[in-house]
């Protein structure tokens, strides 16, 4: 083998950098995170549009869409788990799954245990707990996109709940909450995380 020229060495090192960066992004799950955020962004928009446009049927539709979202999220995560596997990765995956199960139990149970009579207030508390989950995950996994989304959407929920009428509150949740998640997913896809 003839010794590479400095230019050939530079090119080889550049190729190494490109591949290493792509693998690190893939292992970190940028594609997966982006897909999940965009999925929930669309679902939030649909859920709150249903609440705004068809209140009598809203509850069934909301539970149906939430169930669909949970199944789709589980499918995406399971599929990724087959591409790169490691004992340490599996452990973190299990910890995150348990964490989110606990967050969802708190989100659903807390508003009822507190005896909140107003359903918009129960909804605001439920969604705020979920967004707190985003912030905690972001701090845990050192992932600023989750921290930013969690804080932004929590602020939107609280401000809209305090200032808007119920129909406008639902519309705002769909646009700001769903739009925020969708934008977050796109930002991750474009390399910001």
């Amino acid at each position: 083998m003839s010794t590479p020229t400095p230019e050939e060495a530079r090119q080889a090192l550049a190729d190494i950098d490109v591949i290493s960066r792509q693998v690190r992004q893939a292992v970190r799950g940028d594609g997966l995170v982006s897909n999940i955020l965009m999925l929930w962004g669309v679902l939030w928009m649909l859920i709150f549009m249903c609440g705004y446009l068809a209140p009598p049927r809203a509850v069934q539709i909301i539970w149906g869409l939430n169930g669909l979202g949970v199944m789709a999220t589980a499918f995406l995560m399971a599929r990724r788990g087959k591409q790169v596997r490691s004992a340490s990765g599996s452990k973190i995956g299990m910890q995150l799954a348990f964490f989110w199960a606990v967050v969802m139990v708190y989100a659903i149970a807390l508003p009822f245990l507190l005896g909140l009579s107003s359903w918009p207030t129960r909804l605001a508390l439920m969604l705020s707990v979920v967004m707190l989950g985003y912030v905690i995950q972001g701090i845990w996994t050192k992932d600023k996109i989750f921290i930013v989304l969690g804080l932004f959407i929590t602020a939107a929920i609280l401000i809209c709940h305090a200032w808007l009428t119920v129909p406008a509150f639902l519309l705002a949740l769909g646009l700001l909450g769903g739009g925020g998640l969708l934008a977050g997913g796109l930002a991750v896809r474009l390399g910001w995380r």
Partner: protein
Amino acid sequence: MADLNELIHQPVRLRIMSALASLASDAQVDFTYLKKLLEVTDGNLGTHLLKLEEAGYLTQEKTFVDRKPRTYIRITKVGRQAFKKHVAALKEILNGG
């Protein structure tokens, strides 16, 4: 001057080793996923992986996941060291060593 590794220096094998060396020491990558990442064919990737495996630079584990056959590839300690030395040699050439 550090020695270049002739086996690793081949372009596809260099990219294979770059990909594997970027993973944690306990991580394994799926063959199909690696093929898509490197944009090579099954046969091409298989041939290069075999050469690297024969040199002791990586291991291939064939298993079943959800009843479908899958091959997982992991870099070995020897492979990681060889890749590190090769990268050092390239940097020496670049810096005029």
